[in-house]
């Protein structure tokens, strides 16, 4: 038995875009135990519900994260709409679905870049982020914002996106496919990339399910809790089928995300074809009543949970977000046990942690 040493990993580490701390207890080159700590950038956004009315909270909720900002505003607004029995116009639901998939594309491209960076593949990293810029350009053109969109409000959308602009978006995305393929082929076929990920960080199906992992992390182990399979958004009308893998390793999680980028283009294309004419928001009166409502949506990193509790005034008693990374940290801790110290970076990255979300 070798000598046991504790290596502090983070909160500042080249492989970590955001601060989480892991105490890695190692013996020789093997990680025996990993103990996580968070809270370095905790902002207490949920607490702000006590000082801000339910409408203003939309702007706070979309600042939970800069990557899945749109989804957070959708999840929160849906929960308030559910509480107040507000029916959102169908055009708004289509727009929400389109922007959710654009968010997924830009999140996955960002993640692929970070993965490449983690492997020291700098040119691949830069090219992934260059492709991501095109999605941010679409956001800017349609909503005016590149990161925080402020596009969604309780009752619908702040503004419409004309059909000709939506058709342009589809053309841009289809035009990206060839270049995207050149990039994603490297992640799928390149020998050095495959060697880094195949057979590394195995999360068995049953354990993944029991640990409550979500998103591509769960789907890479054959666990389907993709909320797009429920009646969330317009996905049921667009014939959504989740992308799954059963290899359970880092490579499987990467493949799921790569395939989801192309799937998102397909969903957007179908949604633009089927989007009905009509208003994008509905007028309503009154305050959130006494009661509570829970909504689960599928963010790029996985299932996110939103809980609101009303009391009949314009201030909610509670607004809670359980972000996907929050659910994936236990899976990360488990998968780190017994891994090689060299693989820690890969394992952390393939969970796609967003600590900013988790710290909300």
């Amino acid at each position: 038995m070798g000598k046991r040493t504790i290596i502090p990993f983070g909160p500042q580490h080249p492989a970590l875009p955001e601060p989480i701390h892991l105490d890695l207890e190692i013996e020789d080159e093997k990680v025996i135990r990993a103990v996580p700590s968070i809270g370095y950038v905790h902002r207490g956004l949920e607490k702000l519900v006590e000082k801000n009315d339910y409408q203003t909270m939309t702007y706070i909720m979309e600042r939970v994260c800069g990557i899945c900002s749109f989804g957070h505003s959708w999840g929160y607004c849906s929960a308030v709409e559910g509480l107040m029995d507000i029916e959102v116009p169908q055009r708004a639901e289509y727009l929400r679905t389109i922007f959710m998939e654009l968010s997924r594309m830009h999140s996955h491209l960002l993640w692929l870049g970070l993965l490449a960076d983690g492997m020291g593949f700098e040119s691949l990293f830069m090219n992934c982020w260059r492709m991501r810029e095109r999605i941010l350009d679409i956001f800017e053109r349609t909503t005016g914002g590149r990161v925080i969109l402020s596009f969604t409000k309780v009752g619908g959308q702040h503004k419409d996106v004309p059909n000709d602009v939506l058709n342009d978006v589809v053309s841009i995305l289809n035009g990206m496919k060839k270049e995207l393929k050149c990039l994603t082929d490297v992640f799928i076929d390149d020998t050095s990339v495959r060697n880094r990920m195949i057979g590394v960080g195995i999360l068995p199906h049953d354990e993944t399910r029991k640990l409550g992992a979500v998103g591509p992390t769960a789907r890479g182990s054959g666990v389907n809790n993709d909320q797009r399979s429920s009646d969330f958004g317009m996905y049921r009308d667009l014939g959504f089928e989740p992308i799954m893998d059963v290899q359970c390793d880092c490579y499987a999680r990467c493949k799921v995300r790569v395939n989801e980028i192309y799937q998102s283009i397909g969903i957007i294309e179908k949604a633009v074809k089927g989007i009905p004419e009509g208003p994008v928001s509905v007028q309503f009166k009154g305050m959130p009543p006494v009661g509570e409502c829970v909504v689960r949506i599928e963010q790029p990193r996985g299932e996110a949970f939103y809980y609101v509790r009303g009391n009949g005034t314009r201030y909610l008693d509670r607004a809670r977000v359980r972000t996907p990374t929050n659910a994936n940290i236990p899976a990360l801790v488990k998968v780190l046990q017994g891994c090689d110290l060299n693989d820690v970076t890969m394992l952390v990255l393939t969970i796609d942690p967003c600590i900013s979300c988790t710290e909300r």
Partner: protein
Amino acid sequence: MTSYMTKEVAGLDRKDIMSKAEEMSDKGYRIIQMCATSKNGITDVLYSYGKDLDMEMYKVDVPEGVSLPSITSYFWSAFIFENEIHDLFDVKFTGSVLDYKGNFFKLSTKTPWKTVAKGGE
């Protein structure tokens, strides 16, 4: 078709927390989340269990100073929620398999946070 939205929350007695956790674990459910809400000195804890796309929610009232049994023996991943609730809402959990003893969140502001008046008045 499973709905992504629900308003159904069942009440649960404190003494039934563990039997419910055992039942859910046996049925193959996962813990989706736990969260606490404090109002006028009364705290309640919401347990959300899920299986595939289904979800069941249970709410437990927690009077001040009363501890809850930890469900980490059935759902190990609940440690993240229990430690968060402990650090931010001062609800204690007994028998946790991974108890950070108040050091899970590295915060500069002292916790637990007290409720402020609506509108910051």
